[in-house]
């Protein structure tokens, strides 16, 4: 059964598809068993989703290279990951129901779906119809700022009250779970008042500036709130799991893993290093749960040190205070670097172990101060000492330039087109796209293997950019992955291969209609 209810934002008039309009305001996590029709899911789960077993160190055959400052060092990536990737992870969670209120173009949206990972969801419709908004809504069910990297108030519908909410019921192998997120109307209004109309784009909110010295906690989860101008209170994304308030979006990570591919990622290989770092850190966070916290702590200490150097100058700053901050930076920086290094090695092994497909394999390396030391076999404590010494030596320079010259905030993920042995950024646009698809598929396989269940995959306008053979290869790879796919496209015909399995919807001007 597929039932759709959506209400167009601008008119507010009920626009119904196959079903009947529901009441206007869907609150956070209001989907309850009593509302969702037959309770086919049985009792609430008591067990947490199983994580994959701890990593097994194995004799390596895959080499990974970390390059920094002209020196090159190699580490070995375990083959354990490779051999395990052939084992099927549990099917991932599938969406049984999605409800939006005041989200982007949707005043309300209520989608009932067949919660089956083998039944992809395909949204088709013209440009600007609101397809990506649905994917973005789902992307908020994970830590970070969603697939558009929006500020918290941005998704609120124009003409709405200022708040927004996304609620979804997911059905996983261990039972259903209700996830809800959004911001309260009252909190959003308070923030808007505090900032005033001109303050809507203040500097603090724009944490995605890719200045290397700036630090970016946006995806780290540790810096999710946005400080409002007046009273310093932070607007927070509320998160609910099974009707209970969760501490923050990081809590979603335990229930749902999301992997996405959007047109905005096309520049991954040519953009500034910060873009690749963000891609990497999101992936690392999915396989190493403490990563976001360590990154956030590192960035806090880094910003504090930089503030200290800027305000008091290199000579005026209290050396003891600087040493204390550099100690924090070293401790958390080594944790960040170690997690990244481990994730890149695993990703490289996953790529290596994957089948030869229409998507070329990438050769991955990690450039970075601490990463290089660790890759060369340095003990974490020694790497921390060395990093602390570098920071100390760089104080004058960092005070002068206003940015931290070395550290994990400068690291870069280096990607080569393996068959051509050519840096990805020098490849043709089409080859970059194919590499990117291959990399995201590897990310999906790695998270599936590490977490024991396949991720939910969001693909925005991907099919249109691939030729028929690659499109078929993509669908094939996704089917084997076992996670539910949500895809958008302007042309229904591109998804003909999914006829009979996919759930098709047509999106037009903020309405969604079931389409065969």
């Amino acid at each position, binding site marked *: 059964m597929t039932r759709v209810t959506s209400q167009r934002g601008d008119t507010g008039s009920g626009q119904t598809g196959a079903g009947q309009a529901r009441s206007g305001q869907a609150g956070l996590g209001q989907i309850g068993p009593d509302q969702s029709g037959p309770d086919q899911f049985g009792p609430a789960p008591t067990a*947490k989703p199983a994580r994959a077993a701890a990593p097994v160190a194995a004799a390596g055959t895959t080499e990974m290279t970390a390059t920094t400052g002209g020196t090159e060092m190699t580490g070995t990536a375990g083959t354990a990951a490779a051999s395990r990737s052939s084992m099927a992870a549990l099917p991932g969670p599938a969406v049984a129901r999605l409800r939006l209120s005041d989200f982007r173009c949707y005043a309300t949206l209520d989608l009932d779906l067949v919660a089956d990972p083998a039944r992809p969801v395909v949204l088709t419709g013209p440009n600007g119809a609101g397809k990506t908004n649905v994917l973005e809504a789902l992307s908020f069910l994970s830590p970070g700022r969603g697939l558009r990297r929006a500020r918290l108030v941005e998704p609120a519908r124009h003409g709405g009250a200022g708040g927004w909410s996304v609620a979804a019921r997911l059905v996983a192998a261990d039972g259903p779970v209700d996830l809800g997120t959004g911001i309260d109307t009252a909190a959003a209004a308070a923030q808007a008042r505090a900032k005033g109309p001109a303050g809507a784009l203040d500097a603090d909110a724009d944490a995605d500036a890719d200045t290397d010295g700036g630090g970016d906690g946006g995806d780290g989860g540790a810096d999710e709130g946005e400080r409002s101008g007046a009273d310093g209170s932070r607007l927070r994304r509320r998160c609910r799991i099974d009707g209970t308030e969760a501490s923050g979006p990081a809590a979603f990570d335990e229930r749902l893993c999301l992997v996405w591919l959007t047109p905005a990622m096309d520049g991954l290989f040519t953009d500034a290093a910060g873009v690749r770092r963000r891609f990497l850190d999101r992936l690392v966070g999915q396989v190493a*749960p*403490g990563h976001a*916290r*360590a990154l956030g*702590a590192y960035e*806090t*200490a880094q*910003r*504090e*040190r930089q*503030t*200290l150097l800027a*305000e008091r100058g290199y000579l005026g700053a*209290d050396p*003891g*205070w600087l*040493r*204390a*901050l550099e*100690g*924090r930076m070293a401790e*958390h920086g080594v944790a960040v670097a170690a997690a990244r290094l481990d994730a890149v090695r695993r990703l490289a092994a996953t790529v290596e172990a994957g089948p030869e497909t229409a998507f070329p394999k990438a050769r991955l390396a990690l450039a970075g101060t601490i990463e290089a030391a660790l890759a060369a076999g340095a003990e974490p404590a020694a790497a921390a000492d060395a990093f602390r010494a570098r920071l100390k030596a760089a104080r004058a320079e960092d005070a002068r330039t206003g940015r931290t010259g070395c550290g994990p905030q400068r690291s870069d993920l280096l990607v080569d087109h393996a068959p051509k042995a050519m840096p990805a950024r020098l490849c043709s646009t089409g080859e970059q796209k194919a590499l990117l698809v291959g990399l995201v598929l590897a990310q999906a396989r790695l998270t599936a293997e590490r977490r024991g269940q396949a991720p939910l995959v969001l693909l925005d306008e991907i099919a249109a950019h691939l030729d028929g053979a690659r499109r078929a290869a993509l669908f094939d790879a996704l089917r084997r992955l076992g996670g539910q796919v949500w895809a958008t496209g302007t042309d229904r015909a591109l998804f003909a291969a999914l006829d009979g399995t996919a759930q098709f919807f047509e999106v037009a001007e903020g309405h969604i209609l079931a389409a065969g």
Partner: protein
Amino acid sequence: MSTGHAPDIDRLIQLLGKLPGLGPRSARRAVLHLIKKRDPLLVPLAEALATVRDRVRTCSVCGNADTVDPCSLCADPRRATGTLCVVEDVADLWALDRSDLFTGRYHVLGGTLSALDGIGPDDLSIAPLVDRVRREAIEEVILALNATVDGQTTAHYVTERLASTGVRVTALAHGLPVGGELDYLDDGTLAAALQARKSL
């Protein structure tokens, strides 16, 4: 809009509503309750407030809030155990002291180092702490600071400042909460617990 009473009462409601944990609604209830219990509650409360207003001061030794200076903790000779517990603010001191587990004296820093908020060592009671350690025959300083980046930066800094005194500096353990289940711990706490493991 009519409130049903004169501005005097409104003012009291507004002021009470500013207290932590109270809002306008609960403040109205509290005021109404005080009015009804004028003699047994309102009068003594007003007197108590006046007394505290006249006498409250910050202890010049430890930074505690009390009506005597030095505060009753610092004045108590039984608390001269040679152990000093360093806390961020008075709320932490009172929380620790309520537990009755710590029998020594305290030192309130008045915050944590935070370059972003413009709080530096001179804004905190760090120099007086070093003086106290030299003066008072202190054998151990326990740092009971929050397990945040700022708290730990401050702990690091204070430790360094105390190094010249030769005093033993310890910190509260981070890790498994009493009665906590491993299964429910976040990874950061688990890592801290693992790191701070001890022989049995």
